[in-house]
């Protein structure tokens, strides 16, 4: 059980103080998959980071399994963190280490003996389907594979909680689905509590059981996913839900552009802005050997076709230069 009691987080600056989390009280039951959703800047990541003490609350208390995280001394906090895995939007792998060594890192931190460590890493590699990539470096992996390494690494010390900070936001829809499936399996097999922070309603909808919606640091609505989807009360929740529902007649496609053409980005963007589409860069697909940037484009199919032709003509112009 993870509990927030009247938790606030303020950032004091010279002139002003900004409030990132505003008197939040929440209870996340053990073994569930819990979604925290909101637009960017809503304070959801800050809230998540208070669970493993990366951020300390300015007021209030955070409990994980009846232990007050915000009161732990440094050494206690460090050993407590070993039992809480975390995965990130941009993976944060060590590029100087191979896949195997990356997964071994948390075990080294926990002073696990070499024999147990190797066995554990082999098991984790197999669990996330990367046995063949064990000796590759992160730079040789795709975005989805990198996140699998991130997940294996987060599971290394048998955590009771897995914190996911926008874990699929840098991935394309296909990869997102496979990562979400993996997370769901992990929850079912190991009974780990998953806390998922995201701005994508589809993520919450597909795997979460309970959720809360955040806006301006406050939790504005919470409940089961079915409840909130069928009967959203707060305007923000309605917006999030209807956006998602509207996207039923919306199409989603992944387009890409050669890095070289980015120098014309201003004019390209101007052209694209005439069409009401939602455009998101997918940094997870960046690859040294293939200098292209991929976008997720959401919108009506005719608009997407238009955007596609804009990017295409940019590519051709780029070639003629």
């Amino acid at each position, binding site marked *: 059980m993870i509990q927030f009691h009247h938790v606030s987080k303020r950032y004091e600056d010279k002139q002003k103080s900004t409030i990132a989390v505003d008197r939040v009280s929440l209870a996340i039951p053990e073994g569930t998959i819990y979604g925290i959703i909101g637009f960017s800047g809503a304070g959801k990541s800050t809230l998540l980071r208070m669970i*493993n003490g990366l951020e300390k609350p300015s007021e209030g208390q955070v409990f994980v399994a009846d232990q007050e995280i915000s009161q732990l001394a440094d050494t206690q906090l*460090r050993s407590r963190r070993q039992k809480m*895995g*975390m995965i990130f939007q941009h993976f944060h792998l060590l*590029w*100087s280490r191979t896949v195997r060594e990356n997964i071994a890192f948390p075990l080294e931190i926990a002073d696990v003996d070499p024999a147990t460590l190797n066995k554990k890493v082999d098991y984790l590699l197999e669990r996330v389907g990367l046995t063949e990539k064990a000796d590759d*470096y992160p730079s040789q992996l795709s975005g989805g594979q990198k996140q699998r390494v991130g997940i294996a690494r987060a599971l290394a010390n048998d955590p009771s909680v897995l914190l996911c900070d926008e874990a699929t936001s840098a991935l394309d829809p296909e990869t997102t689905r496979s990562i979400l499936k993996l997370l769901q399996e992990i929850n079912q097999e190991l009974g780990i509590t998953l806390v998922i922070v995201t701005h994508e309603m589809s993520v919450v909808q597909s795997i979460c059981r309970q959720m809360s919606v955040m806006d301006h640091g406050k939790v504005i609505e919470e409940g089961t996913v079915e409840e909130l989807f069928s009967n959203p009360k707060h305007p923000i929740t309605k917006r999030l839900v209807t956006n998602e529902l509207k996207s039923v007649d919306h199409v989603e496609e992944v387009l890409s552009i050669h890095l070289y053409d980015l120098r014309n980005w201003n004019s390209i963007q101007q052209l694209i802005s005439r069409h009401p589409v939602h455009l998101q860069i997918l940094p997870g697909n960046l690859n040294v050997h293939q200098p292209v940037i991929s976008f997720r484009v959401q919108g009506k199919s005719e608009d997407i076709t238009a955007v596609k032709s804009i990017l295409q003509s940019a590519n051709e112009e780029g070639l003629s230069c």
Partner: protein
Amino acid sequence: MLADVDWALIGQASLETLYMVSISTLFAALFGIPLGVLLVITEKGHLWEQPLIQSTLSLIVNIFRAVPFIVLVLFLFPVANFILNTSLGSTAATIPLIAGSAPFFARMVETAIREIDRGVMEAAQSMGASHFTIIRKVLLPEALPSIISGLTVTCVSLISFSAMAGIVGGGGLGDAAYRFGFQAYNDSMLFICGIILIILVQLVQGIGDWMSKHIDKR
């Protein structure tokens, strides 16, 4: 023309240069790496926020970098005397060489570490890593290719600085070129010393580049 070259002298001078440069590169690394790490981790919002230590270290580093090397040599006479009981010779010359290059290298280490994505450090923190583990297993390995490039640059500049070691009787190729080449109107001596220095720099740069590239897995 090459008949005018005193090869025994050249050999001796080459050994002196190698000796001074390798000792001072070693110590520049020994002092520069911890200093560079401290400069990063003591700054605001980093692992070990210590504004006072940060600004003091930064000031000391800047002072050493601001003083011209030739003046540093003169200033550090007493220091060399205190540590080594002599202020003359190749070994004594390494003292100002280290003092001049360690702060320079520390700044390079600082930059190299600063380039690391903060998220990687945070990931290590989320796994429960101690500050020391983060420095040893995240910051230094991740910055290693840049640190090696920095050490290469430092070593090359040490080769050129070591030419000034002649003042304290440190000898070396630079000193030989000046005294037995330039002042003795022996152009071939001057020429040969120059060539050897160029080869030395090429060699150091080549090895450094290769090592840095070899371990860079980005």
